[in-house]
């Protein structure tokens, strides 16, 4: 998935105000002692589903677009972040953070958890696959067949995810470049989950179905000092094709936009910087700030000219480091659903 959560993962160690003030500055310097992504590396499953503690940061990130029997749209998010406190890869030197969210017509609900490494309170096992923090879990026999649960004070979800297609390496064989300067991460996705399950809301339980997208990413130094935030999309198009794209905004106003076109059979087509364009068209007042909740997205190679609009513009994550994350609907040359994440606003 995108570099989006790097910032949030660091939230364990930084207060919100400090982090905003510092921007990404802190990230540029602290790679010493950590492993760096290597373009030659190729993924081996299921081992790579597990943790890579020699890298500084890592996450397991699931978003799902769901609907009930009436067609009402819902969205859920399930994220587990790992962040090393100090290099060396020791379990006790890891900090864990997790976010869960549920976007619904009745409102956007979210919760946040933290845990100390090696405590038994959080962790990831590759086989049989299990990622957990407290009672939240993503567990399967394997990563293509998982049960996803999480809850907060007002919501709970319990979903079954099944994928029948391969994992998709992002970037060049899983080596995802984040800037002209060459910062990169290891990154693969599973965008082909079919979902069934139950959402529990303040108004009661709802049976839902839909599709989900998993991102796995690890790195040690993913951003340059001048990058101020990102806008990230993952789209399920109606023909079965998928599109992942992100726009890393620079302090000088420019942006680094890349992505991957994923064919319905799972074959990825990495996009060169600039091929994909993303322009904000609609802004909303969210949590005392202006956030773009409508986008024009084009990809000439696929004759794609679409509008990406937030289903619930108030999908704000008021977590320690706040950001916007919620389901979107796609209209235009292609139709579909997806997820949008924006940080740094």
């Amino acid at each position, binding site marked *: 998935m995108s570099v989006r959560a790097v910032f949030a993962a660091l939230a364990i160690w930084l207060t919100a105000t400090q982090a905003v003030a510092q921007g990404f500055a802190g990230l540029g310097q602290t790679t010493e002692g950590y492993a760096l992504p290597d373009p030659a590396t190729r993924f081996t499953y299921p081992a790579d589903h597990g943790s890579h503690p020699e890298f500084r940061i890592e996450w397991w990130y699931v978003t799902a677009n769901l609907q009930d029997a009436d067609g009402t749209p819902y969205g859920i998010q399930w994220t587990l972040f790992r962040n090393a*406190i100090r290099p060396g890869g020791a379990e006790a*030197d890891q900090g864990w953070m997790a976010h869960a969210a549920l976007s619904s017509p009745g409102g956007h609900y979210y919760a946040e958890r933290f845990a100390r490494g090696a*405590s038994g309170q959080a962790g990831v096992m590759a086989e049989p696959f299990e990622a957990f923090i407290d009672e939240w879990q993503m567990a399967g026999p394997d990563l293509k067949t998982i049960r996803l649960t999480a809850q907060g004070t*007002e919501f*709970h979800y319990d979903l079954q995810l099944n994928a029948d297609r391969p994992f998709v390496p992002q970037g060049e064989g899983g080596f995802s470049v984040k800037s002209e300067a060459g910062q990169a991460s290891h990154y693969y996705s599973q965008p082909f989950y079919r979902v069934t399950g139950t959402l529990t809301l303040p108004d009661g339980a709802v049976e839902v179905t839909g599709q989900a997208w998993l991102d796995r990413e690890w790195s040690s130094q993913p951003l340059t000092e001048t990058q101020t935030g990102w806008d990230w999309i993952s789209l399920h198009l109606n023909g079965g094709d998928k599109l992942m794209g992100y726009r890393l905004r620079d302090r000088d106003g420019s942006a680094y936009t890349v992505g991957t076109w994923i064919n319905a059979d799972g074959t990825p087509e990495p996009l060169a910087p600039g091929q994909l364009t993303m322009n904000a068209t609609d802004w909303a007042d969210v949590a005392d700030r202006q956030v773009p909740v409508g986008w024009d997205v084009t990809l000439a190679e696929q004759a794609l000219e679409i509008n990406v609009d937030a289903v619930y513009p108030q999908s704000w994550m008021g977590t320690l480091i706040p950001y916007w994350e919620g389901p979107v609907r796609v209209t235009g040359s292609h139709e579909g659903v997806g997820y949008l994440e924006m940080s740094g606003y």
Partner: protein
Amino acid sequence: MTRAVIAALLSYWRRRPGQLATLILGLALATALWSGVQAINAEARKTYDEAANVLAGGGLPSLLSPSGTISKETFIRLRRAGWQVSPVIDGWIATPEGRVRLLGIDPFTAPRDGAFGTATEAGAIDDVLGPDGILIASPATADRLRPAYNVREDPAIAPGLAVADLTVAARLLEQPGYSRLMVLEDQPLIRPPLEEIAPKLILEAPETAEDLGRLTDSFHLNLTAFGLLSFAVGLFIVNGAVGLAFEQRRQTFRTLRALGATARTLVIVLIGELLLFAIIAGLAGIVLGYLIAGYLLPDVAATLRGLYGATMEGSLTLSPVWWLSGVAIAILGTALAAAFGLVQVARMPPLAPAKPRAWAMVSQGTARWQLLAALAFLAAALAALAFGSGLIAGFILLGGFLMAAALALPSALALCLRLAARTSRDVMAEWFWADTRQQLPGLSLALMALLLALSANIGVGTMVASFRTTFTGWLDQRLVSDLYVTVEDKAQEDALRAFLTAEGAEILPIWHTDGDILGAPAEIYGVVDHPVYTENWPLLSSMPDAWDQIARGEGALVNEQLARREGLTPGTALTMPGGWETPIVGVYSDYGNPLGQVVIPWAVLVERYPEADKSDFGVLTDDPQALRAGLIGELGLSEDQMIDQGALKAFSLDVFERTFAVTAALNVLTLSVAGLAILTSLLTLSTIRLPQLAPLWSLGTTRRQLAMIELLRAVTLAIVTFLLAIPVGLGLAWVLLSVINVEAFGWKLPMTVFPADWLWLFLAALAAALLSSLWPALQLARRPPADLIRVFTHER
């Protein structure tokens, strides 16, 4: 018109700066004593709040294990079931200047917005995390911890407390498990009940400042009572100074009225004037109170630490509320002190005779009213004694009794003076007694102040002395062992036993544990069957075979405070921590201990509470010094593992003395304030005395003689007041010992009277009277004869 009136009234003070100073000083002193005491109390309460807030995790409920610590596995089981709990390790680490409470927290799961926020906040958390992490403490506490520990200063942490990462605390305290789990406010939607996850844990309501507050309430109530007393005494000064100012400006008031000033204007201007003084004096009093509080604070802090284990930093903060309340109390005090004078001015007809006697006559008229009020106060006091309970009733009793005594004083003095007059033979003596009686109304307020100060001194002094006598006697009985030894481990215990057996000394284990009994923290001690206990440990009440039962391994003894608090008597059953019951076989006195205490047979303690502290032993020997040397030389025990009976006694007495150091300081201050009150009253009187003294002078008495008579009068009145203060003081002592003490501390003390202690007080009262009358007397002695002549030439 108003401006002219203001100018005329204020010009008076410009001409008499000394009198202005007295007024301001009296008011400032009254405010100072009051606000100083308030500051100390507020500071202490704030400290309790902070400590309780941190210790309890910001008012969160917690999960506790009856068996002691909670395992890491239990914590994880709860988290993985959805329970949002955060572990805490709670313990003490030693520093050369006393122990510091160490709180290990988990920055990952601890509540972010509570008192832990600061500890887990901001950049430098890598220093905090991990077993080698640093401690965070307030600057003063940090100073105590360095250089033994690596500390970061944070003024937001309560004094006497250090916060650290859980892993650091686990290492420093050598504690593998958790002391408790805080239960966070936000809990998820679906969560199995506690019984399913951790059936052995108990959910406990948040600890609040009230727990510590309840323990220290009596102490603060004592301080407050003293502050109030001082304030009342200070008001007598203000009353004197205001009375003097009104008296001396009587002619001016009259002139102003004659010249067309309305009574209303006059009263409003006078109120404005007093308001101004009250504000100035209030502000000065606050500064002064701050100094007094700063001076007393170390003793207060020491008392709180020694007696209650409550920590308090020796620093004060001035809050705006404090400034405001100080000024408010000064204004209130001035209003009380000046109300009578103002009413007089308002009612005074424009041509009221400028005769000062009018004032005195009005006061004489109030003597009967005062006596009635005294009876009413006495009735209130008796009602509180008969029907009330608790500390408040105790203080109503105290206040009613003191007020009754003060109000009855003028009548009592008048009676004494009438009796004395009957004994006089020559004309001068006759005049002296009659004249002294005539002065009574003007002096009665000051003398009431003196009576209050003296009886407070006698009462509190008697209480402290009684307490000391009882306490030392009790220490002699209770400290039965000659040497107290603390061992480090079982091996050392075995070595100690072997060594002592060889030396022919006897060893008594003093093992104990802490637990909640009837909802309050208590100490549980185990005693072995040994004649030294039966011989030296008197029981206040007991079953006939109390010690035999204990020897048989049955029953429990409870201390007096626990028995009184819970209404326990021998024969009733007591539920002990862990849920078992045992009959109470006796009650013993346990002075100075704020906690409940239970003594059970040693074997029962070992069996029921395997986690009890087993490191303390008493040793019976004929030669403690030799044994001590042997233990150090042959067993390798260190000096601080042993304490002999003498040192323990000295320590206990030191705690005791410190407790009452504050009381003594306030006693001295109150007496000084009373002296000042007499001074201002005499100054007031001296100006209106001239018409009464001039005839004597014209009949052939020298001014020097007149001055001597004035001195003699002050001393006579002081002596009579002192004599009257003795029964009042003893009554006060009885209330303190038999009513307040029982309510506050839970023990009753026998009263012991020390008349020798009164001697210095008598001298102090004499000195106060002499010093305060010296100046007016000197003034009289130096008065130009012309002033005296004028009495005959003027109407005034």
